[in-house]
């Protein structure tokens, strides 16, 4: 067999290339991109999709073509012609994938680095540990009253922080907004340490550098914002973080992507990207609301409440009623 070189093959090659180039950009498989990181990742995916389409059509094409062209004729029981050694061909099909892989690898590395995946601060114990340990296991409680709580379940060994950190240009700056995110069966609780607000929704201003400190109270959860292309597991006992910049105002969904129990599929929250002004308005309205909550909350000791009662002020937003919450937690006590 020779490396195919006829005009027909060349034409087929051109057609396949054109189809791949077109499909790689127009596959329509991804939802809108609402963060800086998302558009980078989409560009990477489109490149992989272009190469893949070409490869896919080629392999399927060879199979279908061979099945038609080389079908055994009735009554012909002879063998096919044995091949002749074709060392150049073997080198070619080892080298080409190797080069493609190298290219994709380097490109992925670049994107990952520009997202902040290699931010040394994001990957090391860096002082925000204080904030983490204060928040972990008692995030809600801490915002309700400043008195120490009995609720923390999970001790906090000092471990390397994990996730996606600041992009290289933001590495030395603190984030514009820090939000503590805690996953628990089957809800997300977001608290804003600077303003003392906590909520079942994630609100943030557009075009600001946002840092989420993610933790889990009971089992593994995974914080996923599909429109942001970002995901990070929430791990009990190990803080992790995500740092990103939202670019498009609107409402998005926070999805839990790690199996966390029977109602895993129902563990959702809303993420709202505001203009900075709107965000400030929202924050102020929450501060008023939470000071009212606080007055109610100090009347009872939150430590004595079941999860269901404890979460009651938040469940309206989370769209789960407290009875279901109560039922969901037989394993918890």
């Amino acid at each position, binding site marked *: 067999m020779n490396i195919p070189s006829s005009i027909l093959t060349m034409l087929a090659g051109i057609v396949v290339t054109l189809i791949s180039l077109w499909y790689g950009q127009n596959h329509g498989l991804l*939802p809108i991109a609402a963060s800086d990181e998302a558009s980078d990742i989409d560009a990477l995916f489109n490149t992989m999709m272009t190469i893949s389409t070409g490869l896919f059509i080629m392999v399927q094409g060879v199979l279908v073509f061979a099945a038609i062209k080389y079908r055994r004729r009735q009554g012909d029981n002879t063998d096919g012609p044995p091949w002749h050694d074709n060392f150049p061909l073997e080198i070619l099909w080892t080298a080409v994938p190797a080069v493609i*892989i190298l290219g994709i690898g380097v490109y992925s590395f670049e994107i990952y680095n520009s997202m902040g995946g290699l931010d040394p601060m994001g990957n090391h114990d860096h002082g925000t540990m204080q904030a983490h340990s204060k928040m972990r296991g008692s995030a809600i409680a801490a915002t309700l009253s400043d008195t120490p709580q009995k609720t923390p379940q999970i001790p906090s060994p000092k471990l*390397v922080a994990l996730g996606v950190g600041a992009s290289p240009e933001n590495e030395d700056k603190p984030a514009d907004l820090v939000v503590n995110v805690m996953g628990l069966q089957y809800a997300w609780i977001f608290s804003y340490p600077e303003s003392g607000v906590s909520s079942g929704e994630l609100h943030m201003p557009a075009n600001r550098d946002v840092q989420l400190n993610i933790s889990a109270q009971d089992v593994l959860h995974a914080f996923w914002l599909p429109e942001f292309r970002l995901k990070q597991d929430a*791990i009990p006992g190990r803080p992790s973080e995500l740092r990103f910049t939202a670019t498009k105002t609107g409402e998005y969904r926070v999805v839990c*992507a790690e199996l966390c129990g029977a109602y895993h*599929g129902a563990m959702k929250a809303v993420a709202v990207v505001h203009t900075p002004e709107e965000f400030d308005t929202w924050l102020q309205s929450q501060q008023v609301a939470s000071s009212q909550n606080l007055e109610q909350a100090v009347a009872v000791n939150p430590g004595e409440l079941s999860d269901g009662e404890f979460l009651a002020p938040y469940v309206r937003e989370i769209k789960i009623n407290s009875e279901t919450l109560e039922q969901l937690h037989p394993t918890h006590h």
Partner: protein
Amino acid sequence: MTQAQFQESANTEARGTAPADRHWRDYFTFNTDHKVIGIQYLVTTFIFYLIGGVMATLVRTELATPDSDFVPPELYNSLFTVHATVMIFLWIVPAGAGFANFLIPLMIGAKDMAFPRLNAIAFWLIPVGGVLLLSSFLVGAPQAGWTSYPPLSLVTAQAGEEIWILSVLILGTSSILGAVNFAVTIFTMRVPSMGLNDMPLFCWAMIATSALTLIATPVLAAALILLSFDLLAGTAFFNPTGNGDPIVYQHLFWFYSHPAVYIMIMPFFGVISEVLPVHSRKPIFGYLAIAYSSLAISFLGLIVWAHHMFTSGTPGWLRMFFMITTMIIAVPTGIKIFSWLATIWGGKLRLVSAMLFGMGFISTFVLGGITGIMVASVPFDIHVHDTYFVVAHLHYVLFGGSVFGIYAAFYHWFPKMTGRMINEFWGRVHFVLTYVGFTVTFLPMHALGMQGMPRRVAMYDPKFTTINVICTVGAYMLAVSTIPFIINVIWSWRYGPKAGDNPWQALSLEWMTTSPPPIENFEGVPVLATGPYDYGMEKIQNTGERLRLKLRENATRNAQKTGIPIAEAQASTFLGRTATLVAPESEVNVDSPADESQDGE
């Protein structure tokens, strides 16, 4: 005379005289014949496949609507957990062992496996483990996924979880015992004239598989035993409330379970390398490249496990390391795929069911491989990890890359196993239903995942309903596709036309004895008159002086090493016969220099 007739005539002496006479009751005994054990494995695992398939159908039925309204959510989680466990540990892994049991001794000219009794024990652990696993439904089946990540596995369905651990330990033990047996058999029991590079590629694939099994499976056992301590004895290896680390479990688990993917598909890489050349009537392209790429995949497979953990506890630089090693696996895998395509190219394709499934294997596996490179890329994986994109990818690899391979093997060796031909019409119907059903079920799942549907959910956002309905329809089609297969197998086994020894005109040794083979496979020591894939080379080989030398060398080596006098007699008769057989063809003159390199070595 064709190459196949040539190989057959060289082995007339070694051929068994009468097929083994078996009763169905033999298959329910502690039989130590590798062929009985092979069939025991295959039938048992197929039954588990049907059970796992019923669970998959229930899962898909639940997913036909966005609400959790068909089964209770706890049961839903049990269903997909047990579905995955059954499919992996009770179907694909042991089905590979089943074919290896039946084929390896025949392919290398041995009378049985190295340790026949161990072999039987390895088999009987399978139904024990399987029934134990299914019994967990009586006490509340495991709900934490087949990955069983703590802390969830420590807090839900604890009795079921413990049963799950025990049964996986039993099944793991079975696969370790099997692997020891395959490796020892292949290394020590080949006919003396068969060097490692004269073996059929299936044997190479089983060497690579066994190596992986032996290295990786004990690590899973360690992880599960520690998990079991956490569960039963209240230790805190992985339990964060006692300061344990759930991420350590993930490392231990994936150190086994990533290689397990290769344990599942490598035997079928071997199968495809057997099926394609026979039905294309062409030599396999790049024997050595295919053989050694299996070893490369084994080795690389051991250093990529953390790509399942990109979004959990893996620091950035480590993610980069695992991204690169994972991507490198694409190179040896690509070599295999291209070599298979080159094998088909320009052949005389006999599109029987075995061949269709073989080509279907390449067609579907290649997409699984492509999406595999995509998820190896960390930034993209962060988006699609733990979503339906991964469910699609893993089924393309495991269904496309293993189940299609299993079916190809079933159709290809059915005549050898039963002595009868299987009905080709219904085989093709089976193929079309499977291929179409498979595509309808799993192709749309890629889009689901990218657009935001996580995996392992009983309820989902209503905007995904349409795609889910399509997937569910495909799943029903897949369920239906097994019916023609089952009926065809049962009917053909009893009433199919007699197959003869070598219906496909193949060259490897398993076809050089009666169908089904007699108790000890061969009467004498088989001889290699040709390599396993030398189709279409007769003109060159039968005439050459080199061949005669090679045959004499083979025969004497057999005689010396075995010391069996019959081998000598056989060798001389054989040589006499070859001389006469070869004579008439010597007019065909193909001794041009280009052909000198074509002696199949």
